[in-house]
């Protein structure tokens, strides 16, 4: 193992080492929550810097100018997508960790175990981001979801949390198994677990003129079902609301972004990179499901009066929006347009991570006092009880709605633009997406209505928010605003996602 091999995996290794370090610290120095936070936050910042330093970055910066791989043939590659998603996952871990103490400590839930479990989960996502072999991808997936089940059931004395965790675990295991079955079909048909080999052998034998061989069709169907479970697309979304509502709120925030983005990374590696020759075969299914997913998600969110459940359904809608980028890739004839669809997927994922985590963090912060529910009513008059969190929540909600010039607006604009580039039926999908966005405004703005246009209940206690949460909230808000308003940042992410997408679609 050479130095470069280690460097390729460095951010991943740092996160895993950090998780182990936290377990050890907790073993020898129990009840040192501040130390755990210092080590966790510090370590993640180091991982962030390391991921930036080793690259590769799209401007010939960083240690690796070109993609670097491990293994021959490659098992793990560090390309532009890996580095981008590494940063995203580390940021997600960092923010989630910052939001955790305010919720966990008052409820006497152990912080060190939470931190270690979270870090393991993050590392799974990072492994998927760079996976070049079906087995590595599957290991990454399991590394991601197993800690996720633990986190969902973290409040083990809470009935709802346990119920959500069990549903999440059962459906998650089923879908993993289905996915694995699909992978086996692909392996059987192509004789390789290697992403580029699969693409090459499929490209050689399948040109789209003949119907798909049955075995491959089975494999493709199972893979599709498997990943649709993971991203919580309709009709495989039923676990989401219960799992999200039951989980401790910081965990819900994490579940709504971490595993979702990781699952999209899995799709990018398997469907976009390995099964690229088959893209026309799943275009119709995913296209229809994208429209159904966003519409069902939004319709269901309209009626929710529990904000965690509402955000859960809205996250289903956002899944639908991101899927539009995939459909663009699947239907586009022009390779540049196909890449722009993938660019949309990546850009949307990054923007979505910050705004959605931020929104959940405000919910979590209000629940610092045990007993506060996540009913919409707890937000009544928040604008006058806690001005800053309410203001930041407004920023997150406006961004989720897609109001310029915030991150969420650009994310939607880029996805819609890529759909328009394909034209034809995709224009219809773009219109459906925009009408959905208008529908979503209704329930996002209802929270703003509660915060600013309703009087607080008499017994509403003053809101106090810890320092970790405050720092995290400001970071998430800064990202949400900067990605939208600050041209250098917007441009940088646009270039990065485009370069990553072009590399991924092998143009």
């Amino acid at each position, binding site marked *: 193992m050479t130095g470069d091999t280690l460097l390729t995996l460095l951010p991943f290794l740092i996160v895993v080492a950090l998780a182990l370090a936290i377990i050890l610290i907790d073993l020898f120095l129990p009840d040192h929550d501040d130390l755990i936070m210092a080590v966790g936050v510090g370590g993640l910042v180091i991982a962030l810097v390391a991921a930036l330093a080793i690259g590769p970055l799209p401007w010939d910066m960083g240690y690796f100018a070109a993609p670097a791989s491990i293994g021959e043939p490659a098992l793990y590659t560090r390309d532009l997508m890996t580095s981008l998603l590494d940063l995203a996952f580390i940021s997600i871990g960092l923010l989630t960790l910052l939001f955790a103490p305010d919720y966990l400590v008052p409820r006497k839930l152990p912080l060190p175990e939470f931190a270690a479990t979270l870090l393991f989960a993050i590392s799974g996502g990072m492994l998927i981001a760079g996976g070049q072999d079906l087995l590595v991808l599957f290991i990454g997936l399991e590394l991601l979801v197993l800690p996720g089940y633990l986190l969902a059931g973290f409040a083990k004395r809470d009935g709802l949390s346990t119920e959500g965790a069990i549903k999440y675990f059962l459906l998650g295991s089923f879908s993993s198994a289905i996915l694995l079955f699909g992978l086996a079909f692909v392996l059987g048909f192509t004789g390789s677990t290697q992403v580029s080999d699969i693409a090459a052998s499929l490209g050689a034998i399948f040109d789209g003129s003949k119907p798909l061989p049955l075995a491959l069709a089975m494999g493709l169907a199972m893979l599709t079902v498997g990943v649709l479970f993971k991203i919580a697309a309709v009709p495989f979304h039923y676990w989401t609301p219960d799992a999200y509502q039951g989980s401790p709120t910081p965990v819900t925030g994490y579940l709504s972004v971490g595993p979702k983005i990781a699952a999209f990374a899995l799709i990018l590696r398997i469907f976009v990179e390995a099964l690229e020759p088959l893209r026309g075969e799943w275009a119709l299914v995913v296209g229809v499901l994208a429209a159904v997913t966003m519409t069902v998600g939004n319709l269901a969110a309209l009626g929710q009066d529990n904000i965690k459940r509402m955000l859960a359904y809205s996250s289903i809608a956002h899944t639908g929006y991101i899927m539009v980028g995939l459909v663009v890739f699947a239907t586009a004839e022009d390779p540049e347009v196909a890449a722009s669809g993938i660019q949309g997927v990546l850009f949307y994922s990054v923007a979505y991570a910050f705004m959605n985590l931020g929104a959940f963090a405000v919910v979590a912060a209000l629940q610092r006092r045990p007993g506060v529910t996540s009913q919409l009513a707890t937000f009544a008059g928040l604008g006058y009880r806690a001005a800053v969190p309410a203001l930041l929540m407004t920023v997150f909600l406006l961004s989720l*709605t897609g109001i*310029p010039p915030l991150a969420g607006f650009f994310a939607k604009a880029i996805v819609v633009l890529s759909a328009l580039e394909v034209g034809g039926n995709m*224009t219809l999908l773009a219109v459906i997406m925009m*009408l959905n966005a208008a529908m979503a*405004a209704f329930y996002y703005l209802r929270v703003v209505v509660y915060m600013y246009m309703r009087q607080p209940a008499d017994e509403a206690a003053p809101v106090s928010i810890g320092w970790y949460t405050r720092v995290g909230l400001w970071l998430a808000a800064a990202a949400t605003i900067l990605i939208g308003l600050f041209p250098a940042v*917007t441009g940088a992410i646009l270039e990065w996602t485009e370069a990553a997408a072009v590399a991924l679609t092998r143009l």
Partner: protein
Amino acid sequence: MIDLGRLDILSLIIFTPLVGALVLLLLAPLLKLARVDIEAERQDDLMRWGALLTALITFVLSILLALAFDNEATGFQFVQAVDWIGFFGIQYKVGVDGISLVLVLLTTLLTMISIVASFGPIRTRVREYMISFLVLELGMLGVFLALDLFLFYVFWEVVLVPMYLIIGIWGGTNRVYATLKFVIYTLVGSLLMLIAILAIAWTYSQATGTWVGAFDYVKLVEFGFDPTLQFWAFLGFFLAFAIKVPMWPLHTWLPDAHTEAPTAGSVILAGVLLKLGGYGLIRLNLPLFPDAANDLAPFIIALSIAGMLYGAIVAIRQPDLKRLIAYSSVSHMGFVTLGIFTFNQQGVQGAVFQMVAHGVITGALFLLVGVIYERTHDRTIAKMGGLGQRVPVFATLMVFFSLASAGLPGLAGFVGEFLVLLGAVTWEPWVGYVAGFTIIFAAVYLLYMVQNIIMGDVTDFLKGLGSRLTDVNPIEAATLAPLVLLTIVLGLFPALVLDLIALPLEQVLDIVGAVAPGDASAVLLP
């Protein structure tokens, strides 16, 4: 004419309100830091005067712009272009021509007046209110001055949020319903407009092979899109603007929003926000999609006339003063869309003039309703009566603006309506005749309203108020005086506006391909 040198006056105008809003936002924390202790009451006053000062500076800057503006030059002036998102060729590009200039002046004036008009009525959360108002001004000015379609869209949406808050927080009893309805209506339109913007930008970039200039208004106008794209993109833009104007049958958000909004919110809503739609039609729909505009003009004219008649007839039966004026807005704004789509000089000039006149007159009417509401906490027409005996100054103003709104010759309301009707008759005589009925209906509902609340005996309800029913106070007089003046001046000297807008409108009409039979102001001014 004055020379502003290399000053980026447009950006200065757009962002002065933002600077003011930030100062207001940070003032309280800074005072706390500096350990200056001032009571909440004084702090609110500080916010009020700070906002007024900001609006005043913006107004003065816009006057400077008007003085420096050359109304004989073609094309946009004071253009400033900076790369914003180079990846897609999106620029921060602003520029002004005669059409945007008159609307900018209207905006800065009405914002200033609205802020003064809020001094009394707004007693809670003054800081947030004033910040919302200044951000609103930023958005409106940006829409009128943007020359990049993406930038235009951003400003378009920026307008939405503060108005949502102004109605939702400081509005009447049913405010939440009204404000959500307003937002959802507007969002549906604007999101479809976004699709249209992206679609034409993509087409441009495909044809030219580069994203550079793909959102640039000037380049897109020169490009010429194929008819199918024109048709769909036209509809995308049109829906957004038609909702904003609002055109029948998309108007239903307006009466609710107007009724629930605080007085100043209604003033800005009627005075400027509705004009965003009319401006968008002239600035974007006509030059960008001339073929589609020609094809669809008859339908839009039909909708306009339906709206004009519908709004006027419904207004007759409204029990609430604000609802009455709201429906009269639907009717009056029908003139604007009618004039625009006649594609002749009289029609479009009349449309733009009508936008300015309607902004001034209806703004004043809402201020007057605010005056009476402050004292009676009621707007029901049936409860009023004999106001002429009790509050003569108010009554005089009410009669004055009602007559102006009904289109009395010599006042501002007449010019626009007359020109639009002239344009309509030129386009198709019977259309003009049918549209003319609107003016009769307008006289009916306005005189009916005046008769009910001003004339007759003082009602028991008003008697019960006793000495609380006072006449217009100095602050209210100060807000109304400039509008009285403008109504008269614009009525007597319409060339003040028409000279500014004639040239840019001629260019628009050249693109749409309609014949422009002579200068409209020649008809009015021998």
